[in-house]
């Protein structure tokens, strides 16, 4: 039975979540050097293109058709039988449910790009994105949301701690290891070129996250309201905790740290938003800052060029969020289950299994996938291209072009016999 109020909200929420991917593009673009601005942004835009198509073709079906333990069926492939009649247990058109879930697949695929920006070839990334969205995201979405083994054993994951956050974070680690560090990594300071983009991107991501978490109840009911409000409370506490950590470490509160804190807080509340009381959501926000902060500080001292810290912001915070449910979920708030602290230790076990299995699958599957793609084509640009910047190399455009010295090529005059780019 379709509920018009629920449908109206889910239409808006779907739009909000789609907006998160360009917002992520802005966030990522600000974090890289200016010569890679467009390429970094384009990886997110490319993820929208690729993941939407793979999701409609097979991804949605593998995630949401049937209750197979490991993977769904193919009855919904190419959107067959996906119409206006609601899915069992929902009150919105099936087609809208599909679109809402599609936006999750898109942003998760885009998230992984953060590990390989500034050196991965654009074409290789698009092929990786297409395969990853099916082989990793769809499978993990099936486990956590679509009736797979995690859902059957009772793991609680409100809006995607397993497939979205741990899925992207631990895949990012594998991708960074396989693609390898940027040539200047560890030798030169590689600084964010526009901190305003970073803050604005993080702000828009937070805005979109109200649709992401608030829509994951597929209704306007209590769980959605709880998740929506927790999406305000939790990141605010992460921000404050991050400020404190920054102050202790360097005596200054940093802007890029603040942007990171917003992401970490939103990630931590993603799996847990609909299950925790507002008070525990705030506690989670503060607590989640610590491990992510520590991983960022530690990671930059290693040779692992996981460039934009997807592991710290998404993988680690998602892991904390999933586990936190096991301790502090409250049936009086969520109507589903209590955690250990409220007398149900089994819930912690269910959460812990998910928190171990998700990173393992994401890491191994991504590692194998990139090994295979890497055997068929080069994954990364040459050193010369990397030095030139991926914007000019991959797209023939620059983000900050002055127009001085640009000679218009008219159809009559044509391009003389000059070969571009390679000097």
């Amino acid at each position, binding site marked *: 039975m379709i509920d018009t109020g629920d449908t109206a909200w889910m239409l808006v929420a779907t739009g909000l979540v789609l907006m998160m991917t360009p917002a992520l593009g802005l966030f990522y673009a600000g974090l890289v050097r200016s010569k890679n601005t467009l390429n970094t942004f384009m990886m997110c835009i490319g993820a929208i293109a690729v993941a939407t198509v793979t999701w409609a073709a097979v991804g949605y079906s593998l995630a949401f058709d049937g209750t197979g333990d490991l993977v769904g069926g193919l009855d919904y492939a190419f959107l067959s039988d996906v119409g206006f009649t609601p899915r069992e247990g929902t009150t919105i058109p099936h087609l809208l449910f599909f679109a809402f879930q599609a936006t999750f697949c898109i942003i998760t695929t885009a998230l992984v790009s953060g590990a390989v920006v500034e050196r991965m070839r654009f074409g290789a990334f698009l092929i990786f994105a297409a395969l990853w969205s099916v082989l990793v995201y769809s499978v993990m979405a099936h486990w956590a949301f679509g009736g797979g083994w995690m859902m059957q054993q009772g793991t609680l994951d409100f809006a995607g701690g397993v497939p979205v956050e741990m899925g992207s974070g631990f895949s990012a680690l594998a991708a960074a290891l396989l693609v390898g560090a940027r040539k*200047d990594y560890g030798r030169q300071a590689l600084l964010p070129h526009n901190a305003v983009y970073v803050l604005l991107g993080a702000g828009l991501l937070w805005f979109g996250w109200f649709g992401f978490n608030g829509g994951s109840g597929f209704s306007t009911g209590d769980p959605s309201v709880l998740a929506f409000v927790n999406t305000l409370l939790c990141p605010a506490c992460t921000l404050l905790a991050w400020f404190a950590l920054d102050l202790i470490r360097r005596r200054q509160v940093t802007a890029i740290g603040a942007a990171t804190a917003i992401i970490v807080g939103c990630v931590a509340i993603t799996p847990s938003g609909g299950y925790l009381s507002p008070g525990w959501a705030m506690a989670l926000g503060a607590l989640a800052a610590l491990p992510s902060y520590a991983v960022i500080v530690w990671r930059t001292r290693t040779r692992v060029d996981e460039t934009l810290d997807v592991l710290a912001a998404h993988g680690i915070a998602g892991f904390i969020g999933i586990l936190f449910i096991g301790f502090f979920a409250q049936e009086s708030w969520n109507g589903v289950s209590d955690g250990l602290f409220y007398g149900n230790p089994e819930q912690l076990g269910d959460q812990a299994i998910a928190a171990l299995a998700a990173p393992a699958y994401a890491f191994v599957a991504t590692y194998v996938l990139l090994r295979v793609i890497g055997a068929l084509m080069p994954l990364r640009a040459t050193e*010369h291209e990397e030095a030139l910047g991926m914007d*000019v190399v991959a797209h*023939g*455009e620059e983000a900050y072009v002055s127009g001085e010295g640009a000679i*218009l*090529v008219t159809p009559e005059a044509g*391009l003389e016999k000059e070969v571009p*780019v390679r000097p």
Partner: protein
Amino acid sequence: MQSWGGNVKLVIGIVRPEKANEVMEALYRADIRGYSISRVQGHGGELDRVETYRGTTVKMGLSDKVRFEIAVSEPFVQSTIDALCASARTGEVGDGKIFVLDLAQAVRIRTGETEEGAVTPVAS
């Protein structure tokens, strides 16, 4: 002893932006501590990049370069040139140029020292 002229040279090195860091390292290793840089655009015979913006195709006739201006006393000129050449060279067209000029005067503002004294690094 003559108090001005002839003994201080200005070395101008125009290099690829992506080589600027290596040039700075090489200058440091050659004990050359004072210089300023600016971002410039220029054309030096390299092939033009072709870029397209919404159907408008352009040839970019100017390339971004970084210009080092290094004032040194006569005995340091060759080591400066060597450092620039070694660190900024890729072997492809577009590596840049080095120009050496006589400086009529050089003054260190803080102390009023002139000539070699003005361009000799402060003992540390």
